[in-house]
């Protein structure tokens, strides 16, 4: 049993190291800050060749080149906006995981908010309607009220009778 456990542990260890296998580039950053910024940028940009991988995750040659391009631009002191501009002038908005706020993306950005507002409106209207209905129910004519009282009393005394019956 013991060797089996050891084997299992080794297999698991292998798997765990495999999951961290990202493309390794031998790129030396000028500073740790640059490295952090470049990596986060590369995480936010989509590889144009792959359908849903960012520049870091992808092994495709295009992704590798673009990754290095991003690293270089960060080291050259370019701003995030400049780098994103560089990418979108070549590959279009496809490379952005987070679409820009502009004419054709308003529905993306505002759609959920609009839906939420519509939902809230429906809820408010529904509650109001319910309230006015219960208020209507309270508006009884004196005869109706008397009838209701009688009924309630009757049922109450029935309940009382039942209670008595149980106790005895």
């Amino acid at each position: 049993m013991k060797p089996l456990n050891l084997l299992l542990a080794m297999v698991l260890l292998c798997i765990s190291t495999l999951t961290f296998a990202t493309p390794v580039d031998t790129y030396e950053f000028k500073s740790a800050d640059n490295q952090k910024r470049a990596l986060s940028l590369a995480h936010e940009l989509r590889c144009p060749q792959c359908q849903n991988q960012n520049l870091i995750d992808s092994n495709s040659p295009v992704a590798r080149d673009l990754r290095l391009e991003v690293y270089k631009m960060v080291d050259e002191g370019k701003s995030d906006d400049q780098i994103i501009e560089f990418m979108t002038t070549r590959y279009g908005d496809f490379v952005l995981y987070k679409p820009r706020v502009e004419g054709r993306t308003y529905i993306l950005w505002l759609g959920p908010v609009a839906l939420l507002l519509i939902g809230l409106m429906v809820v408010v209207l529904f509650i109001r309607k319910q309230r006015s209905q219960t208020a209507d129910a309270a508006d009884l004519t004196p005869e109706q009220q008397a009838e209701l009282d009688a009924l309630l009393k009757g049922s109450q005394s029935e309940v009382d009778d039942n209670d008595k019956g149980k106790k005895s």
Partner: protein
Amino acid sequence: MKKLVLFIPLALFLGMGIFLYKGLFLNPQKLESALEGKPIPAFQLEKLETPGEMITQEDLKGQVSLLNVWATWCPSCKYEHPFLMTLTRQKLVPIYGINYRDERAEAIRELRHQGDPYALNIFDKDGRLGLDLGVYGAPETFLVDHKGIIRFRFAGPVDQRVWSETLYPMVKQLQQEAAAEAAASGKTNATGAAS
């Protein structure tokens, strides 16, 4: 009136259904080109066949042309190749090649064996021009007008169908535009000379 209100959710559902259904038929492989309407990016690269001889974007101007990104490692390029040969034989439009991330010797050998449809071949070893063109795979074909403006990008192999349905109508139109412009400028030149 009140009953109509009850149909709003159904209408919304149908609206979204149609929207999403249409989305099913979009081709996610096909990216719009961000470069359409922009000039060919500036570059200076060697000619494939003769190292040392430089080509720049200026060499591609002056006539409507196709700019075809290809490589020996690319199977779809091999599929596309015979059709490019036919196009060149028909002399409808010059095709400029961009040999993309390739080995020079191998590329030259390939052209020698399979035929060379290209009027000019740019050797883009590092893929830098490809990067500036927004190339994400090969083959890709750019339609360039006589001023060197990219008018259309087609990703994937060009074949008879793509050519006759998509590319050729555009090529014809651009060539007419170029001819009209040349005629107009010819006239102004003539009047300028006369006065």
